[in-house]
């Protein structure tokens, strides 16, 4: 099974305190968690949604991933759910440049909306809040981890996803920043984008990279799922002394960390996003609280996992989740 992080039961204990603000009545809240499409990253949301329901006694929760990475389809899904009575939405917007329009529509109809796991592009966030990994910071951390793994010197290369996505642009910036801080000791080869569509594309790109530039590369930092899997595998089979830093904590990647094939991975906090997001949305929708500054952006945290902390990183993450609740409590004005 690939969803190896915490799992719902563990998190239930984390959340049982219900944070500093306790939801009075969640029974009118029907919560929908909507990822952009099917992706391993979101799988913890599914279980966490159920935990939200139990912990906060919500009217109903649902998890719907039928958006298929298409903003139009996702909008349809959202509208359908709204029509069926769901009134609090935690959404990962497919298109960061479009999602504000969707948020505005929902807000106009009186729903509570949270932007989860990704924030809208640009400086405005039309949702009530955004709880997401700061992708630039995460990429920065990943690059740092890579630089550390290669001993602070040499060439690294960054593999990532859809070039025409503002989050990708942020990731590229994050890596560049880390490289720039080494004052030229570490150099970065041209970024390889658009290889997250499917595993074989990623695999081929990695193999070609290793064949043509393998000797010059000391480290690979990946900020998308398929390239991460492919890079770990490709480097292992090429037997080149290249350090790979992956993303997320899919079972495959964790086993890579344990076996040493993957130097580090940067995990994010999907459970925290879904749990805290659900709690917040319920508070907002039940009109118990309002945001002091609507549209506030909060980093849900990113964690570098290496062989050393592979067994314990989840505790760190749970602590962060707790911290998030207190942090948000400050942003709320409640009755």
């Amino acid at each position: 099974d690939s969803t190896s992080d915490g799992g719902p039961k563990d998190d239930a204990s984390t959340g049982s305190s219900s944070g500093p603000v306790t939801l009075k009545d969640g029974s009118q809240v029907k919560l929908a968690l909507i990822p952009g499409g099917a992706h391993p990253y979101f799988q913890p949301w599914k279980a966490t949604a159920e935990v939200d329901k139990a912990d906060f006694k919500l009217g109903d929760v649902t998890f719907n991933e039928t958006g298929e990475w298409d903003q139009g389809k996702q909008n349809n899904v959202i509208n359908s759910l709204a029509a069926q009575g769901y009134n609090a939405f935690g959404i990962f917007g497919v298109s960061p440049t479009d999602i504000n329009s969707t948020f505005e529509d929902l807000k106009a109809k009186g729903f509570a909306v949270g932007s989860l796991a990704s924030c809208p592009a640009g400086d405005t966030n039309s949702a009530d809040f955004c709880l997401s990994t700061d992708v630039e910071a995460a990429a920065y951390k990943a690059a740092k981890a890579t630089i550390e793994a290669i001993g602070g010197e040499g060439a690294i290369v960054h593999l990532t996803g859809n070039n025409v996505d503002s989050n990708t642009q942020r990731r590229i910036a994050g890596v560049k920043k880390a490289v720039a801080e080494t004052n030229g000791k570490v150099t970065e080869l041209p970024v390889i984008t658009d290889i997250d569509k499917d595993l074989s594309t990623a695999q081929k790109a990695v193999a070609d990279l290793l064949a043509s530039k393998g000797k010059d590369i000391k480290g690979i930092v990946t900020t998308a799922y398929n390239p991460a899997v492919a890079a770990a595998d490709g480097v292992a089979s090429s037997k080149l002394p290249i350090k790979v830093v992956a993303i997320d904590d899919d079972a495959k990647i964790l086993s890579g960390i344990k076996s040493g094939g993957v130097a580090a991975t940067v995990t994010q906090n999907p459970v925290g996003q879904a749990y805290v997001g659900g709690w917040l949305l319920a508070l907002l929708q039940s009109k118990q609280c309002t945001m002091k500054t609507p549209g506030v952006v909060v980093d849900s945290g990113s964690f570098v996992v290496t062989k050393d902390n592979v067994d314990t990183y989840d505790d760190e993450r749970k602590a962060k989740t707790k911290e998030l609740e207190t942090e948000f409590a400050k942003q709320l004005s409640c009755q």
Partner: protein
Amino acid sequence: MSAPVSSTATEALREDTPVEKPPRGTPWWANQRVGLLLLVVLLSALFGVLRPAFFNQQLVVFPLLRDIAMFTVVGLAQLCVLSIGHMNLAVGRMAAFSMMITGISYDLWHFTLYSGLLVGLVAGTAIGALAGWVIARTGVNSFVVTLALDFLLLGMIPLVYTSLTENAAFVTKPPGMRELRNFSLADVCIGNVCGSPAVPQLAIFAVIAMAVVGWIYARTRLGRELLMTGSSVRAAELSGIPTARRVIIAHAMSGCLAALAGFMLAVSTGSIKATIGEEFMLPSFLGPILGGTLLAGGFVSIWGTLLGTALTTVIRKGLDLLGVGLESLNIYLGLILLAALSTDRIRTLLSDRQAVASSSPPPPPKAAGSQEGER
């Protein structure tokens, strides 16, 4: 108009051969459009009964109609090239290309909403005409040319976006765009009478497109010549139709409509980005073909395109509402599609069987006559 044939010859020609009758008109229930309409209505009723929310004006009907409108325009874009027996595999990418130009016009040149649209339509027309020109000049199959063009644009568009924008999207919204996205006919009033809040204003674009395309194909010389070209290029060429020009025009129309669909998508999702139109290809074929437009060319149906599009969109929406998860969604979609297509076939067969009794001569064997034989 003086007749070049004398009355004696006319007499001589008027032999006593029997009148050659066409095959008996197909019964009303075998008409594809009627079948589709029934199917759409029945399915809507079914979904409505299962989930009353299906008739929620703001949250279901409004976006549903907006989608139908947009995909109808997409279907019309394909229909224009189908009419000459061609295909346009680059519909989506043509939309992306035109919207890129529109986006530039908004972002860099600060155009108004409609002048930007106009620039996009021109760009779409131009790229479509280019495809048509290559096809007409080389005689290479349209499938190949538009596939290659698709690859080309697929490569080119992201390069432009990354070099021109920060977020890989043009986010400047000219005034009016937001309103266009959300306004319905309820916002259009004549005196005290306002339209329905369930009908999006965007749908007007589709209505205009349908009217214009319908007019062209039903009433004008251009439309007829396109259909004749689709029926048989060689006969068309030898009848004095400038087929090369018609090919270019059909593709240009396709590009123009693709641009319009791209605009509708951009307005309804929010921004102009490189991935616009990525999901256009399949619906572009489904709508017209379910509606009875021939892949081989020579016959188009505008209403059929609307109905075909409506059918697929309604099914998807219904499944959404029924809460069908991703594990089953595509399976059901595919199965319903196959079933819808097969019932159409069954209807045709049944009506053929009815015709056996009558004494009219048979229809000519279709192009692929080989497959039509007895065994």
